[in-house]
């Protein structure tokens, strides 16, 4: 008898606890839900010039931009390349902007960069949300999966750098030249996943160069893939120059061929141009500063000028040396053209890419 009563009491307590928590929790959450999607609540229509009827209202609406904090969205994690470039820009661009507002970096990770990319695309084109895109990574996602952004519509501010790639092998690898690779039975490539830019470049390059290829995906990052290569798990990796530099200089790894017209001095290998494959020299991973679609032409100019000025400073050189992240800036028009070219390339190879994605 007593047992059943205790059960009833326990059940009642459980329901009370659970119910109470749900009620309070919902009330708390409901209060917050409205604000989640909104970036900085800066009303761009609030033009100080309007307050003073004596001033001409249309004279340079961006004379004080930014007046409040600008949110710079990074679709990837803290400490990575996109993050580092963004933090540099956030720190140094305000010096070249008329207003007093700061630029603050926000890492919105998820879905391989998609979440952050969509966030930037959806934001108001008032100059208070900016961000960084991965080209051609985000183009590939747009072509091959369902995303809610459109690379062609974005307002391009400029490019930090295009990281170019080379075919990397361990120093003691049996493969010395491009011919060796082409004549092999099969070359196994180590990569993180088929959606990664290095993988995209591999698919395109392997097909163009006629290298019989097999792929091992699943490494949790470029470093692990390189370690996998040293362990003998895979033969080669399509690697960007900066990340491989210390290993090449130490003599642990070497490049067989560089997918670039003008690779850095420390690379002692022929280029794809030397070997007769000029198109491949266009491939690379670009770190591009961008803004939501529909930005005012004047605001775009203000942003691009500040961007290029910030990257032209001695601090920028120091940053590039310290972090092994080169800075070779491109202006807005060149950036837009590069995006178009990259889109064309992804379109051209869409079948190949789709085949590998499945």
């Amino acid at each position, binding site marked *: 008898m007593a047992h059943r009563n205790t059960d009833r009491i326990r059940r009642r307590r459980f329901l009370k606890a659970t119910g109470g928590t749900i009620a309070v929790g919902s009330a708390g959450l409901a209060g917050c839900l409205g604000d*989640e999607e909104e970036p900085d609540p800066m009303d761009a229509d609030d033009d100080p010039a309007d307050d003073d009827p004596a001033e001409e209202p249309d004279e340079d609406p961006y004379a004080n931009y930014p007046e409040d904090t600008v949110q710079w969205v990074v679709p990837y994690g803290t400490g990575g390349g996109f993050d580092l470039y963004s933090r540099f820009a956030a720190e140094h661009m305000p010096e070249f902007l008329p207003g007093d507002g700061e630029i603050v970096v926000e890492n919105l990770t998820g879905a391989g960069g998609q979440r952050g990319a969509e966030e930037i695309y959806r934001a108001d084109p008032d100059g208070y949300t900016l961000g960084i895109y991965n080209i051609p990574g985000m183009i590939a996602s747009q072509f091959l999966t369902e995303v809610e952004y459109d690379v062609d519509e974005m307002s391009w501010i400029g490019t930090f750098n295009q990281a170019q790639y080379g075919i990397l092998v361990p120093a003691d690898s049996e493969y010395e030249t491009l011919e060796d690779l082409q004549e092999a039975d099969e070359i196994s490539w180590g990569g993180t996943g088929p959606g990664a830019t290095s993988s995209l470049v591999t698919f395109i390059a392997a097909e163009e160069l006629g290298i019989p290829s097999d792929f091992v995906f699943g490494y949790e990052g470029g470093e692990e893939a390189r370690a996998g290569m040293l*362990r003998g798990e895979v033969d080669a990796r399509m690697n960007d120059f900066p990340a491989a530099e210390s290993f090449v200089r130490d003599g642990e790894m070497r490049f067989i061929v560089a997918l670039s017209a003008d690779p850095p001095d420390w690379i002692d290998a022929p280029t794809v141009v030397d070997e007769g494959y000029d198109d491949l020299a266009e491939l690379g991973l670009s770190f591009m500063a961008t803004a939501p679609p529909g930005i005012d032409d004047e605001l775009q100019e203000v942003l691009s000028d500040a961007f290029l000025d910030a990257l032209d400073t001695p601090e920028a050189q120091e940053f590039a040396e310290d*972090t092994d992240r080169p800075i070779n800036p491109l202006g807005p028009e060149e950036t837009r053209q590069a995006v178009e070219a990259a889109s064309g390339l992804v379109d051209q190879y869409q079948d190949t890419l789709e085949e590998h994605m499945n």
Partner: protein
Amino acid sequence: MSELVSAFLIALDVVLSWPTFAFVVLGTLIGMVFGAIPGLGGVIALALLIPITFGMDSTWAMVLFGATVGGVAFGGSISAILINVPGTAPNAATLLDGFPMSQEGRAAEALGAAATASALGAIFGLVIFIALIPVAQRIILSFTQPEFFWLAIFGLTIIAVVSRGNLFKGIIAGGFGLMLAMMGYGHVIAEVRFAFGTQYLFDGVDLVVVLIGLFAFAEVLHMIVKGGTIAESGEAVTDRRGVFKGAKEVVTRPTLFFRSSATGVLVGAIPGAGGTIATFISYMQAQQASDDPESFGTGNIEGVIASEATNDAKDGGTFLPTFVFGIPGGSMTAVLLGALTMHGLNPGRELLGENLHILFMLLLALLGANILTSSLGLLSANHLSKLTRVEVDRLVAPIVVVCFVGAYALRLSLIDVAVALLFGFIGYAMIVFDYSRIALVLGLILGPIAERSFLMSLQISDSGYLIFFTNPISIVLIILTITALVLPIIQSRRRSEGVS
């Protein structure tokens, strides 16, 4: 050799000077607070520090990072012992015996043992790390994908240990964890599974979110229903006796301590898996080697010592792949790497060569932080343990608020908070019906590692299964796994024979 010594001395000189030392203290405090608050932990602390240190002097930044990492390790044990909530995933092994000790009124003793084991374990871990630098590359490169697979399998056998007798329920819980691990984008197969069309589930469920829900929120619900205070029995110890008793227990058990610390460093050095499962492996070893294995899980201080010594020693181990190769040993070292790169310190020969003194500064700061936190822990254990005598009604609100903050801070997503709440209810149900939540967590952590390394091994071998048995390390791991499963059976049979 002399470069090692001179780099060490330079580093020591700098770290002990003012104002550099102030950053050690600052980092320690930050680490302790973040470590103690469930869900926050080292990853978020470092991620928040990176932008703050962006323009800062590199020396101060390194010292700050090192100290923060040091503070986090012990910080997490505080909440594990006092309220059964692991500050970070590896701390989960501490609560197995730490919390029962609190319930018996022996919280101060547990904290004392944890603080001492932590500090000593950290020292040991760093010494071994330095000693292993010359052979680090060989160690790290000898573990290939098949070995990672067997290591994950070995880790899963720990589920048997933490199930405490009811293996069937443990397997169910672990299986549920494995199921959860399958949700999201699988890199090897390049497909999204069980995301139900949502972007949120594209990356699957986040481990920290699950931890906050399963342990923190669930514990809160449990407290609300149960009422009373955490310490159910025992007299209130008002002087320092309890703390020092705990500290002494560590010192009087050198074999246990050294074995746990050594395990910590070695397992921690294995890239990827090491960090989280090291503490569980140690715990399991301690139980197997003990005279009284049955008492593990009910408040045996040896469980706390094993877990804590390992937790701190493993940090030294995870530095091997991190600093030599740039392969993160765990999520915290991944962020640490980002922080290092930002300040121009890239892993590899350079860091271990001309910049060795900077590396040592980081390590000394870490060491200093460990000693500081443990000292603080020892001094405040008494006061902290009073929390276990407070009516839980008063603890509930602060814990819930802190957990909401932790869940949100992770990815700035309210959905994470909702998911944490959901797991809170699941966790509470598991408490009531006696299913091991740690088994679930182990399945969640080890599932992806096992699957990934399994599929990658097959890719490498072109679908040949022989690859799983060719490396001697694989064989060793297989033997360890079988031993771990069979040994308890043999032991219990021997005991029942002994009795009769």
